[in-house]
């Protein structure tokens, strides 16, 4: 355990990302130094437009940083990050495949026989509580159920790093809690490195070992890094009632509030 936690799964050093033409583009994030150790659950929190997802996409290899270095387990990242799984905020399932096929197809690139892929997909769908829904197409599932399928699709490949971009954002409050607990229980089984983006500070504290705070954009930076020393296993609903939770929440919110106000202030001026 000690050895694995000392390994650095994701390291961003002095990363900047600019969209548009060189010298005249929009700089989303700059001077980002961030590390996620193996087995560590890190949440990134920040106001709207602070480039949280941009950082995630850089770690996934979906975006190439304009400056700086991304390394995965010590090796510089070239192209897509093959050791990571990505859970998108929007629906990313293939609408023309059933839940079962959506999960099974994730093993396509791993040289697994079709038969075995299907049986493992069934197992994973059962694990996320969808054993009775394997033959449904995505449009026949609720938003929460689609997220479960996406979760199974990501986890069946056994990635070493999990990247999540406000995955539970579009869901209602109860479903979010259920999904949060599901995620924690799956994660507890074999702790992967997690980079979890959210705008919900309470969700971040309830889930993570560390909360990283972003400033308002443009050229957003990391302005805080707070360890969350709440005991595990946690229950998302109950952990919010603990005094320690309130203490951390108060501490981070003091910084986050300033940035949220900045984000809104800039928005008003722009109008």
């Amino acid at each position, binding site marked *: 355990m000690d050895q694995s936690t000392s390994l650095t799964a994701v390291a961003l050093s002095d990363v900047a990302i600019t969209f548009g033409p060189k010298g005249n583009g929009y700089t989303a994030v700059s001077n980002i130094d961030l590390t996620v150790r193996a087995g560590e659950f890190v949440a990134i929190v920040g106001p709207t437009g602070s480039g949280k997802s941009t950082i995630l996409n850089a770690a996934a290899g979906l975006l190439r940083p304009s400056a700086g270095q991304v390394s995965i387990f010590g090796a510089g990242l070239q192209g*897509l990050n093959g050791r990571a799984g990505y859970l998108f905020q929007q*629906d990313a399932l*293939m*609408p*023309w495949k059933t839940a079962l096929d959506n999960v099974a197809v994730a093993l396509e690139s791993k040289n697994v026989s079709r038969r075995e892929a299907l049986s493992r997909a069934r197992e994973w769908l059962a694990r996320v509580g969808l054993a009775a829904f394997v033959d449904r197409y995505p449009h026949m599932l609720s938003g929460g159920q689609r997220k479960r399928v996406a979760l199974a*699709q990501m986890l069946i*490949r056994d990635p070493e790093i999990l990247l999540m971009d406000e995955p539970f954002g579009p869901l209602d409050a109860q479903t979010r809690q259920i999904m949060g607990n599901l995620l924690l229980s799956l994660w507890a089984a074999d702790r992967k490195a997690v980079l979890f983006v959210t705008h919900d500070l309470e969700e971040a504290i309830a889930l993570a070992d560390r909360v990283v705070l972003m400033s308002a954009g443009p050229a957003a930076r990391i302005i805080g890094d707070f360890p969350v020393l709440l005991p595990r296993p946690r229950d998302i609903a109950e952990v919010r009632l603990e005094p320690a939770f309130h203490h951390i929440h108060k501490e981070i919110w003091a910084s986050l509030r300033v940035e949220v106000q900045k984000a809104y202030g800039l928005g008003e001026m722009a109008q």
Partner: protein
Amino acid sequence: MTRVKLLILQVGVGLALLLAWHVLTVYPVFGPTKQVQFFFATPLAVLERSWSLFASGEIWGHLWITLLETILAFLIGSAGGIVFGFMFARNDLLAAVFDPYIKAANALPRVVLAPIFALWFGLGIWSKVALGFTLVFFIVFFNVYQGVREVSPVVLSNARMLGMNERQLLRHVYWPSALTWVFSSLHTSVGFALVGAVVGEYLGSSAGLGYKIHEAESVFDVTGVFAGMLILSIFVILIDVLVTMIENRFLVWRPQSSATART
């Protein structure tokens, strides 16, 4: 509105039109019935003629020829449209270079090609297939092009993150997405394949429904023309039902709205 009620109303409209046609042509409302019947025929005579065409077995051969031309035009046109649609959608340079030519070719009224095709491919079925091809090809081509271009970027990113290579992306993402668009244009493209076949036959052939209609027209046999049109309509409706069945089978994964809105 219940199904039965709707059906009664639909049949009612048809009967009312037939009745009006019958009354106006059998009784001297607009003048001598002989003259009116020469121009408009009568519904009973048209039905009788259609029936005798089937009863004598004369029409089956013509129907088969038209069906064969339609199917060939549809299959070859779709195959061409799919191949070129994919190529152009995945290669921006190709699409940009050929853009004006494709637009020009698509803007051309196909009827003017019929004599040229007759010259090139003879008066048999292949000149009709060629005419149908020029209609079907562009419909399928544009739909596949659109389908491949408009794959959801999130679905695509997700598939990439699942480790899919180009071939797997083609099979699991681009192809099904393009196929959706092909199927959504299935009614149109099958219809145009039939138009190509019938128009081709009409302009020069020795068999097929278009030929039968043209033959009747050339001797001012209005009853024969209407009988040909009636048979053609029934033929089209049957093909359309078949297409709807195929479509429902292939697009089961789609939300209900699109499937029911069409039928």
